[in-house]
């Protein structure tokens, strides 16, 4: 199992003050793949991501990253093990320059690795090279999202967790964003993507899960789920075809 899966969530139960938010959630992310988790607001997506990034403790079950449980690990520890998250709303440091944001992303790496990674990021996101001295907060939404992803990649992740990367982006930018994510996957990084933009997300997913009221209700290859009646009923109000 651990050979093929970079991340496994096993029978996870999480509650807030006794109120169960996640009930027996199991999912796994295959190495070098894009796994998508879709669900409506309040379905438990954010809670799951918090648990995965070490910000929320769970009551039972386990989360295994690269073969080892992450129970009790602090976020910084997980980053050094290669689990990086780009939270919803990008969470850049708006008063820091593009370069400073990127350098902070490579905080745990040596100065030489940081220089090499910086070059790679500029290659992957040419727009960032032109704007190294601009303050992060003054860029457009799409550029900020690229910077947020590039910053996470500076930490050389094995698994990149993206929370709603398409939120608030123009449609053209959304398409561009998903192309980038595919390019990142092709470089060997596994991606766990949480999205409300169901159509686009499923189109790019290697595998997908649907979460509803704290339970995984549906799973399968992205293309299969994209055509399923349940998805259409839940998100578009009509059946497929």
């Amino acid at each position, binding site marked *: 199992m651990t050979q093929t899966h970079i991340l496994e969530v096993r029978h996870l139960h999480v509650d807030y003050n006794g109120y169960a938010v996640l009930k027996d959630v199991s999912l796994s992310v295959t190495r070098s793949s894009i796994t998508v988790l879709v669900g409506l607001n309040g379905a438990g997506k954010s809670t799951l991501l918090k648990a995965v990034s070490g910000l929320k403790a769970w009551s039972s079950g386990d989360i295994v990253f690269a073969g080892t449980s992450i129970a009790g690990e602090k*976020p*910084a520890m997980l980053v050094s093990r290669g689990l990086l998250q780009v939270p919803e709303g990008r969470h850049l*440091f708006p008063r*820091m320059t593009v370069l400073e944001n990127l350098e*902070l992303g490579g*905080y*745990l790496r040596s100065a030489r690795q940081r220089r090499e990674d910086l070059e790679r990021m500029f290659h992957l996101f040419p727009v960032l090279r032109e704007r190294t001295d601009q303050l992060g907060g003054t860029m457009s939404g799409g550029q900020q999202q690229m910077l947020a992803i590039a910053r996470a990649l500076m*930490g050389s992740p094995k698994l990149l967790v993206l929370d709603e990367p398409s939120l608030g982006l123009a449609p053209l930018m959304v398409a561009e964003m998903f192309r980038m994510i595919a390019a990142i996957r092709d470089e060997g990084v596994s991606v766990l993507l949480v999205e409300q933009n169901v159509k686009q997300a499923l189109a790019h997913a290697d595998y997908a899960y649907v979460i509803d009221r704290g339970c995984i209700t549906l799973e399968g290859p992205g293309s299969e789920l994209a055509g399923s009646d349940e998805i259409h009923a839940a998100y578009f109000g009509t059946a497929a075809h």
Partner: protein
Amino acid sequence: MKDWIKWLPLIAALAAVPWLTNAYMVSLLLTCLMYVALAVSWVMFSGPSRYLSLATTAFFGIGAYCTAWGLGHLPWPLLLLGGALAAAGTAALVGLFVLKLRGSYFAVLTFGLSELALHVINQTERSISGTVGRVLLNPPEQDAIYLAVLALALAAIACCAWLWRGPLGHALRGIGADEDRAATLGVNPLRVKLAGFALAAAFAGAVGAAMAGRWTYIDPHTVFNPLIGFQTVLIVMVGGASRIQGAVIGAVIFSLLSEFLRMRFPYFYLVLLGLLLILSVLYLPNGLIALLPRKKAAAHG
């Protein structure tokens, strides 16, 4: 690196001051340089991290007592190092607890630290040596103190520039913007804050150890004067916390202004000083440094 070559003439001129001018000028510039060193040491940690520390008084006083206890037993330059280490050690130890707090709680506890240090030393002196104050026999010459504080101020500026350019500086700025967010990038906030807090404390401690030689009589209430900590924060508020130049300009203006007011209006000078501070905070919330064009200043590093 070549940035500071153009400052060499100014540095050389400052170093030559004891031989070129009179004792009053040396004393005036010494006060200036003391506040430059303290303000830069404060801003190197509190500027990017936004942890408002009132502990400068504590570190200054601990450094001063290193000189008070060690003078006559150890060479004075070694006491400066001792003051730096003692202050940094105290900062690291206390930081383990207070750096977990945020916002005003942190500020209040650092203020408490100065009071705590005052009373600990007061009690120690009373019970062990049976004195309240100490007379410094054979204090160093004012010129030697001046040169030491000049060196400390320059070292603080260089250290701050180096710190802010490297990963530790980025991490401190990230912590100042959002501590949890910085942690998601692999920054260990407590460790980074401890390093920054201790480094800043080292400079304040060394300055205290150097300045102690200026007084021939030292007691806890003189060197643990809360005004030292408050004035340091005010200087940075007036000058601006975003750049080193802000702290330097603020310190120079503040020292010269308070000296001028003290001579002209001996009874009202604190009132006038307070008024000017209020005005500058109201109308220049980002400090005097905000009046300088950004580009030109960026070229200075």
